[in-house]
């Protein structure tokens, strides 16, 4: 079973490498959206510092959306999804492997780039580790929840737009808690509760999303 999961993760990473322009598009989108705000608002340090967490999180949500549409679409079209549905390994495990690969390709780069981009907003250097920690806990939730939407909208016309309408509202708790962590720390309070809540969301999504994704994929094959 682990051999199958290793093969799936390896396949997805290899595919991402061979289509690296697609991956780069989502990451560059994140960089550009975040950079637009300091340019638009102007050099007003207090304002920039205040909006930084919110901007970075919203841009991360949108960048994640952008890469989600393709998660299952091409596998559905070329028949590889059928092979996964008929695999000797439980579908839930395969789904976890796929979401993990999606996160490594499109979530992890955002976590790494965020502290660099935060410099444009003059964010306190002490807050940067917290920003990374919050994103590290939050972005896997985005991948997990987003994959449910991607599986549900599989094979539908205009699926991309529908996916955004379906998934963005579900991202709201992550957005509020994630951005709130930095606001709390900037105000001199402890960000611990926020990080714990993000961890709870991650555990919850990790436990239930694979099941929901599998069910949605089975329906799409009928």
């Amino acid at each position, binding site marked *: 079973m682990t051999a199958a999961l290793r*093969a799936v993760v390896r396949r997805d990473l*290899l595919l991402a490498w061979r289509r690296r322009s697609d991956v780069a598009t989502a990451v560059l989108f994140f960089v550009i959206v975040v950079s637009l705000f300091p340019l638009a608002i102007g050099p007003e340090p207090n304002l920039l510092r205040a909006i930084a967490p919110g901007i970075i999180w919203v841009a991360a949500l949108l960048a994640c959306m952008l890469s989600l549409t393709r998660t299952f679409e091409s596998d559905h079209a070329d*028949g590889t999804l*059928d*092979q996964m549905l*008929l695999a*000797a*390994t439980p579908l839930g495990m395969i789904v976890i492997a796929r979401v993990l690969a999606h996160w490594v390709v499109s979530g992890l780069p955002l976590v790494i780039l965020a502290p660099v981009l935060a410099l444009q907003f003059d964010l306190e250097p002490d807050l940067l580790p917290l920003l990374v920690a919050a994103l590290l806990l939050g972005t896997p939730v985005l991948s997990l929840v987003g994959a449910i939407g991607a599986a549900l909208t599989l094979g539908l016309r205009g699926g991309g737009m529908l996916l955004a309408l379906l998934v963005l509202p579900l991202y709201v708790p992550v957005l509020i808690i994630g951005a709130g962590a930095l606001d709390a720390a900037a105000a001199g309070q402890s960000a611990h509760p926020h990080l714990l809540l993000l961890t709870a969301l991650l555990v919850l999504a990790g436990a239930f999303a694979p099941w929901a994704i599998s069910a949605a994929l089975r329906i799409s*094959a009928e």
Partner: protein
Amino acid sequence: MLEVRALEATRGDVTLFRGLGFTLGPGALLRVTGANGSGKTSLLRALCGLLLPAAGEVRWKGENIRRLREEYWKHLAYIGHANALKDELTAEENLAVACALSGTAVPHSRIRAALEGFGLGERRRLPVRALSQGQRRRAALARLALCETLPLWILDEPFAALDAAAMRQVQSLVGAHLARGGMAVLTTHQEARIEAPSATDINLDRPS
């Protein structure tokens, strides 16, 4: 042992077939024929468990496949209409993933031998994108040479886009599989000559 009882499938309001029943034992070949749109692919997908039949059931060794799930799928090799190949991966990489998913661990040398058997030895390191339609079909079918441990093969139009040499190769692989005591279900428009201990035909145009 695959048993089908009173199987019925619908597409929209149209009933594709109704009351279909048959049993496949070791060494049995089932050929499904019928006009385009007569429900051949739907029947095969129902046999795999991808499609929920409107009525009836498919049983594997006496148990409904809906309950068996992975226990059934680890005995099954399904090659569908679509080739299930990723354009960006090479034929070799595609086969390795397919084998890992079906739970058959095969060494690299066997994958190469399987591709050589289908005349793709020199093209095995090319991305599938660079292969012709027929070569892609060959790459997909090369999997058959690697899954002789799986007792049930379900093949949807295996001979489409194949030339005479590749067709013979598939026929001999299926023949050897049946001689080993395997089972095979396939749909085809071509006149395929396969040596089978016992062969049944189902024509979906004239339901029995």
